[in-house]
C-alpha cells in the first residue's frame, strides 16, 4: 500500500515507454520489503515521499524544491548540489534531498561489478534513485542527507576508486563520445583525451576558481554525437586533412544495391533505389564530388568534411589518415546573453598524448578568462564582449578566413595604434594651421 495516493502519476504507468513512476514504485517496494536487511541511512520511504511531492506538483503545477544551501565534502567546492523540499513536514523523507555528481568513465562503459558497488552504496546511504546520467554526463545520485556526504565520498573513493564530478564555477565533468572504441569515424582517441585532461585538471574541477562553469566535450568526428560544439565551452571535434579514402568497388556495390545506404538507417521506408548522384553528390555542401558512372572522385581542397558521403556509404568511404581535431570555443545555453555554439578557433591540432598542444590552448584561454571574465560570464560571452580578435590574441592564433563564416559587414574596424603611421598622438596646432576653425 503506497504511502500517498498518486492518481495523476499512476496514469504515467501506462503506455509502452519505460515508466519512471513504475520504476520509483518498484524501488519503494524493494526498500519497504528490505529483503537484504539493509541498514538504511536515510529514510526508507524517500522514494514514496518523492512520488508524493511530485504528485503535489502535478496538482499545483509548480515545483516544490528550494534553492540549495551550501553542502559538500571537505576540500571540494563542487560535486554536491544541495536540495530541500519546500513542504518538509508533508514529505520528511525528502526534506533534505541532495544530489551527488559522480565522475563517469569516458564513453560511459561500465561493468556490473562497478555498477553494483554503486547501487550498494546508494541503497544504504541514499534514496536508491539516480540519473543515468545528468545533462553534463555525470552519474547523478539523487537524494541524500548532509551527514551522508562524507560517508558516500569515502566509500566511492576507497571502495570504487571513483571521484565526484564538477558543479559550480569550475571545470565541469568532461565528456567524450565513444570514439575509437566502437566507431570507424573517430579521428582521435576521444576517450583518452577526455580521461587525461580530466586527470590533469582535477584541481580546476574540484575547486571553483573560474568566473563561471567551463565544459570540455570531445567528439570524434563532425557528426558530433556528444554535441561538443553545441554544449561545451571548449569543444574538440575530430577531423582530418588529407583525402577521403575511396573504395571504388564498394561504391559500385552501393550503386548496385548490394550494400544498404546510410548503414541501413533508412530501412524503415521504401525510398526507392539508391541514387548516388542525387543522394550524395548533389547534397555535398561544397560541391566537391563527381560521379562519372564508374568512378567517384573528390576534390579534397574543396571538401569541408561534413561526413554526409561517408555516413551514406560507410563501407566505401573512410576518413583520411592525417587525423586530428578542430577546436571550437564558447558554446553555451541561452542564459544570460542568448545561446551560442562553439566558434572555430583552431582548425587542426594533432591529438597525441599527452595532448600538450590542446592543453596549451586551454590554459591560455583560462588565463585570459579568469583575468577578464565577469562573474557568471561564460567564456563565449567574454568573447562576445571583448571580441573574437581578443581570443585570437590571447591564444597566439593568427586571424584566418576559416575563423569566419563571412567577413564583417560593417566598416567599424579597430586598428592597433602601432598599425597606424604616427600613432594616435597628433598635433592640434599643426592641424589648426592646415584647417582654420
Amino acid at each position: 500500500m503506497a504511502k500517498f495516493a498518486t492518481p495523476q502519476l499512476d496514469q504515467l504507468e501506462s503506455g509502452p515507454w519505460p515508466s519512471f513512476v513504475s520504476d520509483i514504485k518498484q524501488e519503494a517496494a524493494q526498500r519497504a520489503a528490505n529483503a537484504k536487511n539493509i541498514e538504511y541511512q536515510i529514510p526508507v520511504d524517500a522514494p514514496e515521499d518523492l512520488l508524493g511531492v511530485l504528485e503535489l506538483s502535478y496538482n499545483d503545477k509548480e515545483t516544490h524544491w528550494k534553492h540549495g544551501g551550501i553542502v559538500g565534502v571537505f576540500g571540494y567546492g563542487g560535486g554536491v548540489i544541495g536540495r530541500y523540499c519546500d513542504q518538509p513536514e508533508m514529505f520528511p523523507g525528502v526534506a533534505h534531498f541532495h544530489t551527488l555528481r559522480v565522475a563517469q568513465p569516458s564513453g560511459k562503459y561500465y561493468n556490473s561489478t562497478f555498477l553494483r558497488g554503486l547501487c550498494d552504496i546508494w541503497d544504504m546511504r541514499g534514496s536508491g534513485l539516480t540519473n543515468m546520467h545528468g545533462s553534463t554526463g555525470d552519474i547523478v545520485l539523487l537524494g541524500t542527507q548532509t551527514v551522508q556526504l562524507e560517508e558516500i565520498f569515502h566509500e566511492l573513493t576507497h571502495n570504487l576508486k571513483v571521484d565526484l564530478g564538477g558543479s559550480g564555477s569550475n571545470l565541469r565533468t568532461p565528456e567524450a563520445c565513444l570514439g575509437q572504441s566502437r566507431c570507424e569515424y573517430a579521428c582521435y582517441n576521444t576517450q583518452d583525451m577526455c580521461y587525461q585532461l580530466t586527470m590533469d585538471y582535477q584541481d580546476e574541477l574540484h575547486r571553483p576558481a573560474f568566473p563561471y562553469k567551463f565544459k570540455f566535450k570531445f567528439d570524434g568526428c563532425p557528426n558530433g554525437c556528444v554535441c561538443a560544439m553545441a554544449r561545451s565551452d571548449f569543444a574538440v571535434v575530430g577531423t582530418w586533412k588529407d583525402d577521403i579514402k575511396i573504395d571504388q568497388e564498394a561504391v559500385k556495390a552501393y550503386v548496385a544495391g548490394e550494400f544498404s545506404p546510410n548503414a541501413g538507417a533508412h530501412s524503415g521506408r521504401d525510398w526507392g533505389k539508391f541514387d548516388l548522384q542525387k543522394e550524395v553528390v548533389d547534397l555535398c555542401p561544397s560541391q566537391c564530388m563527381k560521379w562519372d558512372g564508374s568512378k567517384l572522385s573528390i576534390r579534397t581542397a574543396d571538401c569541408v568534411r561534413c561526413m554526409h558521403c561517408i555516413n551514406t556509404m560507410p563501407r566505401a568511404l573512410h576518413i583520411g589518415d592525417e587525423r586530428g581535431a578542430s577546436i571550437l570555443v564558447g558554446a553555451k545555453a541561452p542564459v544570460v546573453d542568448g545561446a551560442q555554439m562553439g566558434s572555430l578557433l583552431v582548425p587542426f591540432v594533432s591529438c597525441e598524448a599527452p595532448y600538450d598542444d590542446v592543453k596549451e590552448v586551454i590554459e591560455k584561454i583560462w588565463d585570459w578568462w579568469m583575468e577578464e571574465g565577469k562573474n557568471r560570464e561564460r567564456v563565449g560571452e567574454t568573447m562576445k564582449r571583448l571580441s573574437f580578435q581578443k581570443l585570437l590574441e590571447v591564444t597566439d592564433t593568427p586571424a584566418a578566413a576559416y575563423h569566419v563564416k563571412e567577413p564583417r559587414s560593417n566598416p567599424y574596424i579597430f586598428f592597433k595604434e602601432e598599425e597606424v603611421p604616427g600613432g594616435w598622438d597628433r598635433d592640434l596646432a599643426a592641424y589648426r594651421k592646415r584647417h582654420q576653425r
Partner: protein
Amino acid sequence: MAFISSGYNPAKPMEGRISDIGPRKYDEFFPPVIKNNFGKWLYHEILEPGVLMHVAESGDKCYTVRVGGTRTMSVTHIRELCDIADKFCNGCLRWTTRSNIEFMVDSEEGMKALRDELNSRTFDGGSFKFPVGGTGAGISNMVHTQGWIHCHTPATDASGPVKAVMDALFDDFKSMRLPAPMRIALACCINMCGAVHCSDIGLVGIHRKPPMIDHEWTDQLCEIPLAVSACPTAAVRPTKIEHDGKKINSIAIKEDRCMYCGNCYTMCPALPISDGEGDGVAIMVGGKVSNRISMPKFSKVVVGYIPNEPPRWPTLTKTVKHIIEVYAANANKYERLGDWAERIGWESFFKLTGLEFTHHLIDDFRDPAYYTWRQSTQFKF
C-alpha cells in the same frame, strides 16, 4: 536505523583521505570485442531498429543492442541491467549521451537472444523496461532535465512530459521511416541543460509572469546587486521600500521589460517566479548539432506556449506528434527538420503544419533579432 560509518572520521577528515582521483579509466570496462578491436573498426550497419553491427579490420563483429532508458532510474532497475549484462555480455554495458543503454555481444545468435530478452521485460504497470530501438532515421531517446522531480527553477516537469511524448512517438523509436534522425530534448526551464537549443524538436519550460518580490526577505536572502546584474533586459533594479514601518533595501521589477527568464530568481530566492497558471512549455524546432550537409543550427520557437497539462500533457504531445507527421510526409531523404523548413521557407512550415504564427515567435532579444526579420520581397503568399 543506526548510523553506519564508512570509515570516515569527521574529527580527522584528512586521515586516509583519497581525493582528486577522477573517474575510472575508460578501458577498464570494455567488453572483449571492444578491447580487441579498439581503433580498428571498418564500418557498421544497422541490422534492424535498435541493433547495430560494427565490423573490425580483424573480421570481428560487435553486435550492439540499444534500449531506451528512463534517465531517472532506481538501483533496482540498474541491478536488473547488470543481471542482463552478466547473462549475455560478460557483465559489460554502456550508456549513450541520450540515456539509451547499449549491450554488446560478438555473435549474431547472442544478439538475437539478448534482443528478445530485452524486449520481453515489462514493469508491473505495463510499460516496457528495455524497449529495443532508437537508431538511424528514427526517434532516439529524449534528452531531458529534472523538472518537478528535483529542480528548484523549472517551469514544467521533465520526466512526465517525456514519458507522455515518448509513448506517443514509440513507433518511431522502434522504426526508421523518417527522412533523417530526429533528436528531441526537453528542458524544464530556459537554462536549457542539455542541447535543447540545437535539437530537431526542443521542448522548453517557460514562465509567463514576472517574479513576485518577497520584500521582507530580499535583503536577507539575496545579494541584491547580483540579482540586478543577472537580468538580461535590465528589468531588475535596486530600490528602497517601506516595510512594516521600516525603510529596507529591496528590488523593483519593471514588469514590461521582464521576459520571465527566472535568472534573477536563480540569484535571489526572494523573487519566486513559478506560477501554476502562468507556466508551460514552448516548442522549438529545426536545430541540429551535426555538421552533416548543413552547418549546425539553433532550434526556432514555433509554438510560444502550451499550458502544463499533467499528467500526460495532451496538447503538447499531440502537437509534437503532428509536427513529426508533417515533416515525415514532406521532407526529402536525409533532410533534418530544420533543413526541410529552410528549404521550403518557414512560412510554408507554418502553412503545412497549420501551426499559428503569433507575435511571440518574432525575435525581439537584442540586436541580432533584426537578422531574423525578412529583409526581402521573397516570400510566399
